[in-house]
């Protein structure tokens, strides 16, 4: 090497890529903008609205205290929607977890045509909502329902069922369509949990001589519980805050029997123009969702696995 000329003699320069502190801020910026602009701002705006009398017709913001809250709490539609939301979420979640677990158990096995079954299971997830809505409206149509046609052909029913026209059947239909929509997501999550069980454990279960049900209850379910809880959390939030199915199929009817809090908030606040009450109804969901999320996340963390 020639004397005195080394690459290290040049003055060291810090490039942008070397400045970790600046990079961290730069990379966080889009997320921060997104969360503040599209989550935090609307949330606090809604909170503000719920204590005012703002409507689409009269956008001036007058503070009215708890009046909007008192109004919705004394409304019978609110309580109908509240219990409907609980029933809708509860029954949906039970069905989703059970069906998703069964599908996941089948799909982690090796069999011929597995890719086709997987494709079919994931199909509802990839179907555009509008297309799914049209199909379901046709399937559940009061006059042209193919389900009714098949049932009539077999002689199970005399006349049409009017799925969306009777309170219990309407709620059943809403739940069925929602379960159909969420099951693929839950299946994929639970499948990941089942595949994460080490193959040595699977072999040990076989050597120890446990049958299908014992393996299911003593090994598979306990070991997939944490990830199932995550699936339940996602599913519950998607169900609790969902209004698409109700909006498309029944618009809350007949006689509010399928009205849920999120759909009622939409009808009141956006279609009815009463932004303040819509905000108050929508905000009522928030503490419930928060509580559910905290309970589930804690359960997952404290669960003694691995």
């Amino acid at each position, binding site marked *: 090497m020639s004397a005195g000329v080394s690459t290290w003699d040049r003055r060291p320069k810090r490039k942008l890529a070397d400045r970790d502190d600046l990079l961290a801020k730069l990379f966080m910026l889009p997320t921060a903008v997104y969360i503040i602009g599209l989550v935090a701002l609307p949330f606090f705006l809604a909170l503000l609205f719920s204590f005012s009398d703002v409507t689409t017709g009269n956008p001036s913001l007058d503070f009215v205290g708890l009046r909007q809250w008192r109004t919705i709490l004394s409304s019978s539609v609110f309580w109908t929607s509240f219990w409907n939301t609980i029933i809708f979420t509860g029954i949906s979640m039970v069905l989703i977890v059970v069906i998703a677990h069964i599908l996941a158990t089948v799909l982690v096995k090796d069999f011929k045509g597995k890719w086709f079954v997987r494709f079919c299971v994931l199909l509802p997830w990839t179907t555009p909502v509008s297309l799914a809505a049209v199909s379901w409206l046709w399937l559940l149509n009061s006059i042209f329902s193919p389900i009714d046609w098949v049932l009539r052909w077999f002689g199970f029913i005399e006349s049409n069922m009017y799925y969306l026209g009777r309170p219990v059947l309407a709620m059943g239909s809403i739940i069925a369509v929602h379960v159909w929509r969420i099951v693929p997501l839950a299946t994929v999550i639970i499948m990941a949990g089942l595949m994460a069980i080490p193959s*040595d*454990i699977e*072999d040990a279960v*076989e*050597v120890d*001589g446990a049958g299908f049900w*014992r393996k299911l209850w*003593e*090994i598979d379910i306990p070991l997939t519980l944490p990830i199932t809880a995550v699936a339940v959390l996602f599913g519950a939030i998607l169900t609790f805050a969902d209004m698409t199915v109700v909006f498309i199929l029944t618009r809350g009817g007949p006689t509010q029997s399928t009205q849920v809090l999120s759909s009622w908030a939409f009808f009141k606040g956006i279609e009815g123009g009463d932004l303040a009450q819509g905000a108050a109804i929508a905000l009522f969901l928030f503490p419930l969702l928060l509580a559910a999320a905290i309970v589930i996340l804690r359960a997952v963390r404290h669960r003694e*696995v691995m």
Partner: protein
Amino acid sequence: MRAPDTESPPEGGGLSMAHVVEVRGLKKHFEAGDVRAVDGVDVATSPGEYLVLLGPSGCGKTTLLRIIAGLEDPTEGEVLIGGNVVNGLPPRARGIAMVFQSYALYPHKSVLDNIDFPLKAAGLDPQERRKKAEWAAKLLGIDQLLHRKPRNLSGGERQRVALARAIVRDPSVFLLDEPLSNLDAKLRTSARDELKQFQERLGTTTIYVTHDQVEAMGLGDRIAVMFQGKVRQLGPPKEVYSDPADTFVATFIGSPPMNLIDRGDHLLGFRPENFLPVDAINGRGGNVLEVDVQVHRIEYLSGDRHVYATVPSLGRDGAHIIARIPPTVDVPVFDDRDQRFAIHERDLRFFDGNTGERVPPRPVRS
């Protein structure tokens, strides 16, 4: 391990001649990649025997064990346990117990529930289950850990739980898949000793898979050395060590491995510890082969001197060899110097130049 007061399972269970594993013409082909994992294996164990399947990774030893366990189906051949063909039978119907490399303890169950699980699956009544589980826990010295979860146990304790879970079912055969490989080196030696004592006490036929020749030599009554899906040699440790059936066994077993010198149509082999300075070997009787060696380097390893040298007179291109001089030999050996070494002719082994298989002795006078 503390001495247990009951030496046999509560409900009898001793041994009989029928409790032997035998495989006949066993083959296993995996479609994916067209792998012949097991390529024609015939092995039979005798009652109470400790049989070790030894080989490098990918030699088919674990696949063979899994086929015996019933976790894999063979492509061809038969598996017999206790004299009956068990092909197609599920693992639970074969009277086997298996300890896995990872131990495969159920992470959400306590030690007691882990040990109890196979008994529960077998449908035993709770009283008997408790008796058996406590017997097994006591035998392995883990009776004070019964209510802990696996993640709160050390590696050695986990291994004992896995063993306890294996013995409660009173199996006719233990299948152990590298049960020591997850332990650190220090613990491994004592665990190996415990494992051997434990097996001797129970007297249960054991098939043990390992890639570690030290474990194999130390534990096995017989060793089956496997390579590329075939058993290359089956015999007691001493025989496998000093009379290897081919060059693979010769070089796989022993550390440093057997020296092999290419002599055209055949290979000349000898163990490093048999090749000594001429002064150290005189007076032991028998025909002795004396040669000049050029010493290149000497290593001191746990008291032994490992001498790296060439022996030009024995093979072409200067025949590189390693000699291992035990601490009891104090003849001086120097780097970069020619010296006279010797070996008894009875310690020379000969292998075919093409197939690598053992052949009768040839004249080696240089």
